[in-house]
C-alpha cells in the first residue's frame, strides 16, 4: 500500500518536473529576444534606449549617455535587442510604449517610418557642429532619413588570422573567393545581405553596377554562382561576436565581420587579425524615436544630444565606428582605454576607402524578403 502510494507520488513528481522543465526549455526558443519589464519610474525622469549590446552599447554609454545624464538629469536605461521592428510595432499597436529611442539600420528606420511606428524627426532638432557648421551640410550624405538620425558609419569587411593563414596575405575581395591561393574555411553571415554584394564585387563587377545587376535575374544567378564556388568551405555565423571567435579558434582562416568587432579583438584583446578593406560595404547606423512614446520630449532631447559631433566622436573613442558628421570625423583621436590611434581603423579613412560600396537601403527594402527566400533555398540545397 505504502509502496504504491510512493510510486504514485514519484510519478506525479516526475510529470510535474517534466512540465515545468518543458516550459522552462521552451521559453528561449519561442521568445527570441527577451522582453524585459519596463523600469519603474521613480519620479525621476528616465528614458529607455534600445541598442545592440556588447562592446558597441558600452561605447555608447561611455561615449555620450553619461554626459547626457549629467547635463539633463534624465536617466538612460539600456535594453538590448537583436534588431527587427516586430517589438516596436507590437508596442505601438498595443498603445503601451516603453521603448523610447531605438538604434537601428536605415532599411528598418525607413520601413518603420513608412509604417508609422517611428516619429518623424524635425531637422531643426539637429544641433550645429562645434564651429557652427549647419547640420544640413555637416552630416554625410544619405545618413539621415525622415525618421532616422544618422550617428555612425560601420562597415562589413573580411578579416583573416595570419597565424592560421600562412603564405602571402590576401589583399582584395577576390582573394576571399579564391580557394586555390588561399585554401581554408571562411566565415560568412547567414543572410543574403552583403554576401551578394561581395560575390559580384569578387566576380569583377564595378562597384556602381552591383545593385543594377542584382536587380536582373541574370545578375542574381551570377552572384549565387560565385557563392557556389566557396559554399562547401563556409562556416555560417549569426551574431556579430562570432567571427572573432571563429578566427581565434582556427575554425576559419578568414571571415566577414563588422569592422568594430575585429577592432575590438585587435586592440583590446591583442589578437593578430588583419582587416582587408578592399570591397568593404559601408552602411549607416541611426537612432529613431518610437511613435507615441509618453516621453517624447526627453527622447528628442536625447536624439539631439546623440546627434552632436562630440557625442559621435565620443563613441569613436571606444570603438572603430565612424561619426556620421564631417565635424565629428575631425574629432577622431585615440582609443580612450588603450591610447591606440583610432583613425587607421576607421572605415571612412581614405586609405581604407580605395574601393568601397555603399549599401543601398532602397534596394534592400524592396527585395529583402525575396532575397531571404532565395538565399534560404540556396543554402538548403
Amino acid at each position, binding site marked *: 500500500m505504502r509502496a504504491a502510494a510512493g510510486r504514485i507520488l514519484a510519478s506525479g513528481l516526475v510529470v510535474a*518536473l517534466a512540465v515545468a522543465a518543458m516550459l522552462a526549455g521552451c521559453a528561449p526558443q519561442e521568445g527570441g529576444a527577451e522582453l524585459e519589464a519596463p523600469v519603474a519610474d521613480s519620479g525621476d525622469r528616465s528614458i529607455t534606449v534600445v541598442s545592440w549590446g556588447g562592446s558597441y552599447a558600452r561605447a555608447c554609454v561611455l561615449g555620450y549617455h553619461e554626459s547626457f545624464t549629467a547635463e539633463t538629469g534624465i536617466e538612460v536605461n539600456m535594453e538590448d535587442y537583436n534588431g527587427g521592428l516586430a517589438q516596436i510595432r507590437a508596442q505601438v499597436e498595443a498603445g503601451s510604449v516603453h521603448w523610447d529611442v531605438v538604434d537601428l539600420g536605415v532599411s528598418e528606420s525607413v520601413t518603420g517610418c513608412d*509604417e508609422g511606428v517611428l516619429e518623424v524627426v524635425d531637422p531643426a532638432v539637429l544641433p550645429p557642429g562645434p564651429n557652427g557648421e549647419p547640420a544640413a551640410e555637416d552630416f554625410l550624405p544619405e545618413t539621415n532619413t525622415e525618421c532616422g538620425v544618422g550617428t555612425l558609419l560601420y562597415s562589413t569587411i573580411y578579416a583573416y588570422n595570419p597565424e592560421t593563414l600562412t603564405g602571402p596575405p590576401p589583399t582584395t575581395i577576390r582573394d576571399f573567393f579564391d580557394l586555390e591561393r588561399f585554401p581554408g574555411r571562411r566565415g560568412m553571415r547567414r543572410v543574403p545581405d552583403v554576401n551578394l554584394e561581395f560575390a559580384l564585387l569578387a566576380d569583377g563587377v564595378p562597384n556602381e553596377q552591383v545593385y543594377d545587376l542584382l536587380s536582373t535575374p541574370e545578375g542574381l544567378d551570377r552572384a549565387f554562382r560565385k557563392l557556389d564556388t566557396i559554399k562547401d568551405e563556409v562556416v555560417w555565423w549569426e551574431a556579430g561576436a562570432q567571427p572573432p571567435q571563429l578566427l581565434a579558434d582556427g575554425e576559419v582562416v578568414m571571415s566577414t565581420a563588422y569592422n568594430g568587432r575585429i577592432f575590438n579583438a585587435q586592440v583590446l584583446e591583442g589578437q593578430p587579425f588583419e582587416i582587408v578593406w578592399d570591397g568593404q560595404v559601408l552602411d549607416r547606423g541611426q537612432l529613431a524615436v518610437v511613435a507615441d512614446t509618453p516621453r517624447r520630449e526627453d527622447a528628442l532631447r536625447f536624439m539631439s544630444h546623440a546627434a552632436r559631433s562630440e557625442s559621435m566622436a565620443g563613441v569613436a573613442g571606444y570603438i572603430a565606428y565612424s561619426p556620421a558628421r564631417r565635424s565629428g570625423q575631425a574629432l577622431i583621436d585615440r582609443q580612450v582605454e588603450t591610447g591606440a590611434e583610432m583613425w587607421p581603423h576607421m572605415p571612412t579613412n581614405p586609405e581604407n576607402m580605395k574601393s568601397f560600396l555603399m549599401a543601398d537601403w532602397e534596394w534592400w527594402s524592396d527585395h529583402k524578403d525575396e532575397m531571404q527566400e532565395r538565399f534560404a533555398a540556396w*543554402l538548403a540545397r
Partner: protein
Amino acid sequence: MRSESEVVTPEDTSTRQQPVARPRWRRALGPRLRAAGLALPLVAFVVVTFAGPMVSLLTKSFHEPEIADALPETMAALRQWDGEGAPPDDVFAATAGEFVAARNERTLGRTANRVNRVVSGMRSVIMGGSRLMVEAAAEAEAAGVTTDGAFWRETMIGIDARWGTPEPWRALRDAGQRFTARHYLKALDFERGPEGGYVRQAEEWRIYVPLFWRTLKVSLGVTMLCLVVGYPIAHLIATSPPRRANVLLLLVLLPFWTSLLVRTTSWIVLLQNQGVVNDFLVAIGVIGDDGRLAMIYNMTGTFIAMTHVLLPFLVLPLYSVMRSIPPAYMSAAASLGATPLQALRRVYWPQTLPGVGAGCLLTFILAIGYYITPALVGGQSGQLISNMIAYHVQTSLNWGLAAALAALLLGGVTALYVVYDRLVGIDRIGLG
C-alpha cells in the same frame, strides 16, 4: 478499508433519495455542472491567452483586409478593368487620389510594404512614385489645371513607365482581395504565373516544401536517437537503488537548469575543429592532425546538440513507466527459460510501450518547433521551417505568411497524431 459490500454506488444513493422530485437529467447534470464550474477559470485562461490569440493569428493566413480598406476606390475602379493593357482613366484618377491622400496622412508606407509582398519591387514604385504625384498635384492646383483621369494617366506613366503596363495594376488588384489563398500557395512554393493563376516556382526559389521535409526528417531522427540513448538510461535509473537513482535523475535534469544557449555553445566548444574532442582524438593518435572530424556546423552537430537538449523529455516519462514494472516479471521470464534478450523483447519492452509512446510524441513535437539550436550548430543545414516562421514574425513582419506556415505545420503535426492514434492508440500512452 471498507469491504466490498459496504461500497455505496451512485445508483444506490439515487434510489434512496427517490422522493425528492428532480428530473433525472438535472440530477445527472448537477454535479457535472458544478465540476465544470470549478474548471471555468482554467477554461477562461486558456481561451484568453492561448486559443484566442492562436485563432486570430491563424485567421491572418487567409484574411487580409488592410489593403482593400486602405484603397477602396482603387479596388472598386479596378473591378471594371479586364486585366489587359493599361486600365481605364478612372482607375488612374482613383489610385492617384488615394495615393496622394494616404501619403499625406503617412499611411501609404504600410500599404506599399504589403503590396511589395505580392510583387517584389512595388514598394519603391509606390513610395517613389507617390512623392512625385504629391508634387504634381500641388503644381496642377497652382496652375489651375484640372486633375482628371487623363491628367493622372499621363502624369503617372511619365513618373514611372511601368504604370502603363498591366503588372503593377494586377499586383494592386491581387493584394486588395480580402480573402486570399496566396499565403498558403506561397508556403507551398507556388507563385503567380505570367498569365495569372499559380504555377510551381522554379527550383532555385523553392524553399518552404524542402524545409518542411527537412524539419520532419530531423525531428524523426532526433526522436529515434533520443530513444536509443534514453531507453538504457531510463532503465538504469529505474532499476538503481533509490540513492543512486536520485543522483542519476539529477544528472538528467541538470541540463534543464542551464540556459539553452549555454548548453548549445558548450557543444560548439567540445565538437569544433580545434575543440576538445578532436584535440583528444589527435592526442591519443586515433586521427591525424589534418584528419580532424567535422562534427559541428553540419547535420551531425544538429543531431548531437538536439538529442542532448531533448533527451530528458524522453527519459522522464520512460523512467516513470519503467518504475512501475515489477522486477519480478523479468526474473519470472528468466526462470521460465527466456534468454535475457528474449525477456527484454517479449516481457519488458511491451510493458514500456506507453512510456515510449509518450516520450517519443513529446520529443517529436518539441523537435519540430526547435530552431535556435540547429541555427547555431547546424551550419548550412541548420535552417528548419521554424526559422522561416520566426523570420516572418520578427523581421519581415509578414504575419500572413508566418500564419500560413504555422497552420501547415500544425496541420501536419495533427495529422501525424491522428495516424499515431490509429496505429498505436492514444490511450496506450501513459506516464506510469
